[in-house]
């Protein structure tokens, strides 16, 4: 029975437990055991951002002090929103599209929007996996290919571009991406990346081929392997020289940084994106749970595991980064010492690093002109520690360079890129569930078509759409998608999710459902955060985001060997058509919400008119 108040034309088309009845014709697949479900959710939440975004934020925003806004955001925003998602998915037992249609037909657009964003994100997220796979494949050799520059044509020196930047940067920008200097210049499809793209999508297909039947088995490996590798890196990293400097630098708290509102914004967005909210993936995963499952405990567990993983990863990452900084600092000093020895004809190896300052002072006093001619660089350890990076810069440039200097480099490279691949893959599985479950629930394909065919077609469509990222300008396009396609839309959808559940579905009804599922009624904390704090924080993030985006014209940093300040990146503005694309990406998926609401309104009006004409039964 459904209480569709058609006569009043009101919004309250509240479908009761009718969704249960529809399941009678189609037994919904379910998880083999609770552990599989937890691992899938953890795998989905724990992704590349935990490795390469959180440590960077921690370090930029005053080390240990960043944990304060981070945990506040977790408690007041992350866990409540997460709880809503899995509770509603578990209760209504549908994917994102079905759930929102069930709550209110006017909110169906939220589900469709989540579906669209999942599709867009899957395209570029898998491209990052393509790059990781390429590095992984290249790690099975000694010496690693990014440790030395290739030789130039007459074999007298190294390639010019490599010489001016570094072997690692050259391998990333030239031999992997073969990037162009401008986004307008698309270049050709790189066949190496194309092969890896095909391989990645085939691997993803293998993992989602039977829905959660296959996903559930894969996550045992993809969700647990990263923890193993992180532990190994932690142990190895702690024995490397310079690791402690890196960790001290990372975690030294600087409380004053909390006065900067940007810190709070970044903490809130980090929690939001780190938990992979509003993709529809968590709703899909939870919909395969038995209805009586303690979703509250699951939500808290998964969110806490995600945050702990971020911390754990940042310790491992920063011990290695500290080692690299110490190494670079030593090389810097050695270069200066060599300059002095060569110029002043001192015996070979006669000056140690400790003697260097005294010697420099002495020479400065006696022969300042010659010393000045040398242009010695001042070496400070803090400068090298500051050179942290986030995102692809951390993984493919900073970390790869650090790995070269570790004994047994290929082993560490294989482990590191294997870990990144399984982290990304487990997140991809969640994103694909956010695409496939709605397709299955919508009944887009007839029931006679096997699930393998549906997932195959989905992966094929995604593969062809992602071809644009294997062009030479693909790196720039990926940045655009990363910055514009996901961020604003997800915040909008999360906002509508909270509003939809709390105000449209009804807080009382939702609390009743949660009580039925978990056995406990949600307490004051949940009610306050759902009703008030969650939506307010989302609104605040949304407005802050818009303000920041509007402040300066969007630009990108291009790798241009012809640039006068090469190897620094050249800051270029996006051309007009690219800016238009950014705008479209930011708002188009959200347009589903008003579009579907409008369509529903018109359909209802038409139906009302028809019923008004026909006699009432």
């Amino acid at each position: 029975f459904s209480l569709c108040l058609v006569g009043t034309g009101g919004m309250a088309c509240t479908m009761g437990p009718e969704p249960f009845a529809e399941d009678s014709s189609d037994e919904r697949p379910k998880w083999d055991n609770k552990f599989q479900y937890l691992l899938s959710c953890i795998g989905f939440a724990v992704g590349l951002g935990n490795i390469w975004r959180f440590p960077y934020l921690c370090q930029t925003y005053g080390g240990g002090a960043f944990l304060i806004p981070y945990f506040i955001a977790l408690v007041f925003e992350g866990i409540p929103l997460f709880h809503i998602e899995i509770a509603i998915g578990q209760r209504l037992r549908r994917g994102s599209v079905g759930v929102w249609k069930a709550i209110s037909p006017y909110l169906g657009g939220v589900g469709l929007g989540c579906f669209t964003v999942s599709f867009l994100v899957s395209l570029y997220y898998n491209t990052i996996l393509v790059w990781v796979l390429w590095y992984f494949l290249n790690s099975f050799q000694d010496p690693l290919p990014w440790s030395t520059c290739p030789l130039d044509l007459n074999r007298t020196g190294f390639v010019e571009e490599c010489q001016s930047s570094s072997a690692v940067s050259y391998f990333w920008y030239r031999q992997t991406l073969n990037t162009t200097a401008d986004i307008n210049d698309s270049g050709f499809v790189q066949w190496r990346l194309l092969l890896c793209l095909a391989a990645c999508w085939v691997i993803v297909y293998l993992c989602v081929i039977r829905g959660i039947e296959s996903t559930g088995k894969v996550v045992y490996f993809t969700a647990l392997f990263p923890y193993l590798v992180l532990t190994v890196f932690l142990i190895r990293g702690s024995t490397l020289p310079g690791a402690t400097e890196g960790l001290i630098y990372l975690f030294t708290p600087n409380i004053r940084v909390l006065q900067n509102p940007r810190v709070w914004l970044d903490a809130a967005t980090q929690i939001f994106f780190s938990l992979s909210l509003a993709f529809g993936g968590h709703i899909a995963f939870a919909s395969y749970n038995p209805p009586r499952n303690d979703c509250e405990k699951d939500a808290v567990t998964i969110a806490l595991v995600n945050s702990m993983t971020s911390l754990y990863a940042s310790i491992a990452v920063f011990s290695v980064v500290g080692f690299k900084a110490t190494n670079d600092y030593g090389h810097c000093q050695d270069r200066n010492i060599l300059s002095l020895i060569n110029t002043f004809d001192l015996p070979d190896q006669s000056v140690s690093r400790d003697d260097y300052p005294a010697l420099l002072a002495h020479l400065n006093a006696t022969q300042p002109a010659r010393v000045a001619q040398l242009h010695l660089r001042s070496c400070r350890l803090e400068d090298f520690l500051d050179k942290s990076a986030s995102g692809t810069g951390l993984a493919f440039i900073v970390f790869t360079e650090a790995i070269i200097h570790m004994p047994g480099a290929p082993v560490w490279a294989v482990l590191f890129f294997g870990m990144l691949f399984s982290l990304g893959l487990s997140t991809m599985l969640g994103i694909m569930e956010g695409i496939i479950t709605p397709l299955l629930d919508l009944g887009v394909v007839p029931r006679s078509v096997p699930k393998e065919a549906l997932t195959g077609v989905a992966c094929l469509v995604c593969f062809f759409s992602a071809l644009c990222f294997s062009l030479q300008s693909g790196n720039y396009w990926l940045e655009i998608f990363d910055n514009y396609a996901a961020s604003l839309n997800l915040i909008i959808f999360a906002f509508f999710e909270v509003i939809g559940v709390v105000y449209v579905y009804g807080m009382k009804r939702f609390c009743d459902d949660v009580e039925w599922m978990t056995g406990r009624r949600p307490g004051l904390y949940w009610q306050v955060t759902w009703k008030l704090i969650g939506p307010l924080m989302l609104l605040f993030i949304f407005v802050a985001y818009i303000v920041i985006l509007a402040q300066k014209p969007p630009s990108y940093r291009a790798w241009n060997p012809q640039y006068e300040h090469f190897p620094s990146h050249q800051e270029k503005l996006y051309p007009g058509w690219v800016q238009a694309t950014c705008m479209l990406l930011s708002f188009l998926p959200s347009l589903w919400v008003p579009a579907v609401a409008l369509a529903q309104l018109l359909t209802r009006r038409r139906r009302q008119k028809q019923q008004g004409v026909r006699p009432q039964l």
Partner: protein
Amino acid sequence: MLWPLFFLVTAIHAELCQPADAENAFKVRLSIKTALGDKAYAWDTNEEYLFKAMVAFSMRKVPNRETTEISHVLLCNVTQRVSFWFVVTDPSKKYTLPAMEVQSAIRMSRNRINNAFFLNDQTLEFLKIPSTLAPPSDPAVPIWIIVFGVIFCIVIVAITVLILSGIRQHRRNNDGPSEVEDAEDKCETTITVENGIPCDPLDTKDGCLNDAFVTEGERLTPL
């Protein structure tokens, strides 16, 4: 009588081998300690003699210069760094050989010279002579393609196995008796609702359970 001649020779020597001024002079820098560590040898006049011999040897390989002798190679300004300048003179010792010839000669025999001193291109530097770098050992098939092929084949095989087993399962389900399915329809895991309170799904593998005999208080008997 011989003294003026001696002074003349040294003067000419000094003229020909001048650090930084002579256009055909090359600066050489050795880093023996860096290369050999504890096993480093001291740089003395005997080592200098060997160096002159190696340079003369390299020059002899050049056509037209087969008659170069050790005495034609002049070293000067040896420092503690161990660095010095050298020139190669022609047999008449009046002028130095052009830099291009010396450079090409040294480049050809660079490996022999390095080996004579247990050094390499980085520790025995000829400052104006670029060394020919060894090409990287490229295997015929890049390693990444091999690993890629292995992974790709495994994944394709796994997908094929899964699809085939899925097809076989599908066919078995279709051929199986459909009457069994009708009977099971009645006792499915439907979550029926009675009086606004949902009932728990029943485990119907062993038939239908009569709710009246279930001890949990929340369940209601289906009407």
